[in-house]
């Protein structure tokens, strides 16, 4: 292209400053936007007496792991992480199984009322969680599920399942149905076609949905705060919020605990980030 049109020939000279500007802008923006995460790491490695030095050091000369030892000894963080992992696992499993089959149905069969059901599921995003939590609290009390993680598996489904159905429906819509029809002609049932053809083809979408559902559930605070009372039953979100309102705040401890509670999500994110773009837009952008 460039070699054909003479009007673009003077460009190379102006390209260098532009690229430099681009690299600088990207670097500065990344640095600013990621800085809070760096600050969490930096503070978590600070010795206690360094916390009250003004101005604070941007990089601690002799980092220590004291705060990690302190919080792991003083707080039931292992419990919190274990509870959250259990919760994420159970919620994701329930959400994916129900959402895959529902999304497949909405995507492939134009059953009577299916469109209405689809829009009703989408409309759950309008529901204020602070409204739902009141009757859900009454429900969980009458089911005897207060201080039981099962209450959170159920409650978190209110958010995760509708989300998962719409994401997966977008994915299934993009898979040509001729592939399934070929399988049907070969004598495979609809269920067989779903699991042998569609699910494997939609694997990136399913992975993205899992990532979303995991992050939403790991993040959830409102239901956990309302349904759980005892510190040993806390999820990680609830546990990390419990530093607020204490008499003395040791920032290195708060940041160390916060970082421990973030690492599983960062690992998941770094492993699965490449699936995320198609996932976030699959259901929304056409």
């Amino acid at each position, binding site marked *: 292209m460039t070699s054909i049109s003479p009007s673009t020939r003077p460009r190379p000279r102006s390209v260098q400053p532009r690229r430099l500007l681009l690299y600088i802008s990207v670097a500065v923006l990344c640095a600013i936007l990621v800085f*809070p995460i760096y600050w969490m790491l930096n503070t978590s490695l600070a010795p206690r007496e360094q916390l009250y030095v003004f101005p604070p050091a941007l990089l601690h000369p002799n980092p220590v792991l004291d705060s990690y030892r302190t919080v792991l000894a003083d707080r039931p963080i292992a419990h919190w992480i274990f509870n959250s992992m259990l919760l994420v696992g159970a919620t994701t499993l329930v959400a994916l199984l129900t959402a895959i089959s529902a999304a497949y149905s909405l995507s492939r069969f134009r059953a009577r009322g299916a469109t209405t059901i689809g829009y009703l599921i989408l409309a759950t995003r309008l529901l204020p969680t602070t409204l739902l939590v009141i009757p*859900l609290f009454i429900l969980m009390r009458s089911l005897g599920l207060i201080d039981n993680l099962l209450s959170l598996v*159920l409650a978190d489904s209110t958010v995760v399942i509708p989300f998962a159905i719409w994401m997966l429906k977008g994915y299934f819509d993009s898979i040509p149905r001729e592939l399934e029809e070929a399988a049907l002609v070969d004598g495979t049932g609809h269920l067989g076609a779903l699991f042998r053809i569609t699910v494997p083809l939609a694997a990136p979408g399913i992975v993205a949905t899992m990532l979303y559902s995991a992050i939403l559930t790991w993040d959830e605070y*409102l239901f956990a705060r309302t349904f759980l009372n005892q510190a040993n039953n806390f999820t990680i979100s609830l546990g990390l919020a419990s530093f607020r309102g204490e008499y003395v705040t040791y920032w290195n401890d708060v940041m160390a605990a916060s970082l421990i509670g973030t690492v599983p999500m960062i690992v998941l*994110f770094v492993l699965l980030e490449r699936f995320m773009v198609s996932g*976030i837009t699959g259901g929304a952008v056409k």
Partner: protein
Amino acid sequence: MTFIRILSGRTRFAYALLLPALALLGLVVAYPLYSGVLLSFEKADFFGSSLAQRGWTLDNFVRVLGSADFLPSLIRSFAYVLIVTAGALTIGLLTALLLNESFRGRPLARMLIALPWAIPLVVATNIWWWLLDPSYGLVNSTLTSLGVSQQPTQWLNDQIPAFIAVCIVTIWKAYPFFTIMLLAGLQGIPKDLYDAASVDGAGTYRRLRHITLPALRAVVPIAVLLNALWVFREFTVIWVLTGGGPVNATETLAIATYRAAFQDFHFTLAAALGVVTLAISLVGSVVAVRFATRDFY
């Protein structure tokens, strides 16, 4: 005959696939929504199952809408949604435009820029709580050393700074969603369009103005709406950072509902407030969708 049997079999199969999700959502969404709405018309204020006296009334709505706290909470909710959406959209647009250029290290830059999305809300709140600490926080020490302010700002103890603080944390959590949505929109633009425009002599600005921004019109409304709905319901950031204080300065409708239910234990009043909140987001979304479709098609 066989055709009808196959058809009805297909339909039965379609419903059977929907059933597990619908049953679960019925239990945890539809039923609670139904009993929440009933609760808002309930006469007696009750806690748990000890119902004093049954009867239907509009009193809860009269009390909620007539309360002096209602209008300020509503305005705060709108201001919160507006400020966060504007801030997150701006950062999202800027980052998406940069990431749409091709350069070395772009996958890494994309990952770093999207990273706050994966940071748990409570963790984001804790980090900013520390950054905004009035005595030893980095924000105040930077402002002082730059000579911007002499007195340390009491970020979470003064009313306007507390509101700003809540908005900053929420923007930081919200912008990656815009980055990713807008980036997807940008990458859907055919390269030929830019080449053709360059051949016709269009510079960077005119390509942005006439190709890039119009192409984003398909993505921006849906991203703004989804984000606005999320921010309107947002509870965690505000609750953990300020609890709605100081002196109600950060009390949005979501916070007011929760306070009424689980601090004052006025379940019926809280339900009425929640129903009003739901009505507002319903009307708001319908208006937004109408507006968007009229404007863009």
